[in-house]
């Protein structure tokens, strides 16, 4: 059984989808990710889909679900590197993924997550200076 690895990077979880997702795999990812969020207390989830070239409505819904579930568990989700064809397909399917943050690539996604958590988080003053520098 194939499994999509979920990597932990400090406060964030990093998921890179390197193969075309089929339904079973997507469902497993959803379950694993929620488990991981709860286990690690992660504040952000970054999903890299830059090599995914095919999506269907099910995939779109799973991504939306993951974002909503993480949100309830106080973690932001950022989807990065979506291909033009995938974006057009999702829009045509009527899935604008409103609850999901997006970024062009992993670097900008990480930056966005850091900013989000600083804005929402309590340790804003302590770490604010540092995050701002690294963003530049």
């Amino acid at each position: 059984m194939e499994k999509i690895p979920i990597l932990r990077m400090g406060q964030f979880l990093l998921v890179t989808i390197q193969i075309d997702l089929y339904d079973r795999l997507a469902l497993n990812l959803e379950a694993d990710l929620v488990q991981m969020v709860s286990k690690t207390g992660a504040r952000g989830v970054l999903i890299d889909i830059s090599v995914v070239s095919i999506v269907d409505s099910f995939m779109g819904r799973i991504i939306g679900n993951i974002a909503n579930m993480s949100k309830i568990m106080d973690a932001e989700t950022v989807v990065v590197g979506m291909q033009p064809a995938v974006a057009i397909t999702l829009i045509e399917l009527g899935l604008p993924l409103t609850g999901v943050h997006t970024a062009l690539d992993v670097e900008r996604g990480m930056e966005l997550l850091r900013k989000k958590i600083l804005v929402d988080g309590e340790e804003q003053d302590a770490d604010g200076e540092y995050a701002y520098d690294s963003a530049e």
Partner: protein
Amino acid sequence: MHKFLFMKLETAKMLQKKKKQIIDLWMKNQLADSALREDLMSNDDLRAQSEELVDALLKKLTDDNLSNVDSADFEDIYEILGGVSITRARQGFSPRETGLYIYSLKDALLTILQQEFKNDPVQLYDISMKVSKLIDSFGIVTFETYIKGREEVILRQTDEITEISTPVIRVWDGILALPIIGTLDSARTQVVMENLLQEIVNTGSSIAILDISGVPAVDSLVAQHLIKTVSATRLMGAECIISGIRPEIAQTVVHLGIDLSNVVTKATLASALKYAYSILQLEVRKKQTTLVKSN
């Protein structure tokens, strides 16, 4: 009966013998027409074109196929005619000029036949009808290919317009602008959207400005397309600003009840650019020292 057949056999041969005369007469007919376009085609070219057709026609013409316009013998001629009328369509000849080209051949042929058969009205009538029918069928082919040629020209222009009219401009590092000129329909939106998204990937830009000051009218469908483009851009991880919203367009959008509240809209491209700069934390300033010196 035998004599009649013999006479008929003569017709094709007779015409072949009179080839020079036919061509001269045809050319005379064509040159006599006031609508002759010497600017599009020189008389020598016209003569060469006409000779080629008469040559091919007389070579293939027998008394058997004269009465059968669908005969396979005429395929070459249809091909030549097709080539001639497509070139004429591309060169900008009018339908009338193209029609006169082929129908003046009929006049030439009928004149020759009249001279030849002036003592035999029955025969003349019979042959004239057949020649008439044959040239009419050529005429139909000519028009068909002429219109096909014109349609090709129109199709090519449509493609070109779609291609040209959707340039994605890189106005700043990380900022793309896409001025839309002309009405947005589904097919064009698709091209616009694909170009824009591809360019976002290629340049890694995080802001795209969609300028619609060149769009004459916005209806609910166009607005739908715009919203789709904005959402797709957002999914890619970039932000999309719509600029160039004229007062009339703002009126229509509100009257149609279209919700653009999730979309950043600006009145001019300049203000959209300013907004983009503020997102990227850039600022534009006057270079003060040099200004003082030059004044």
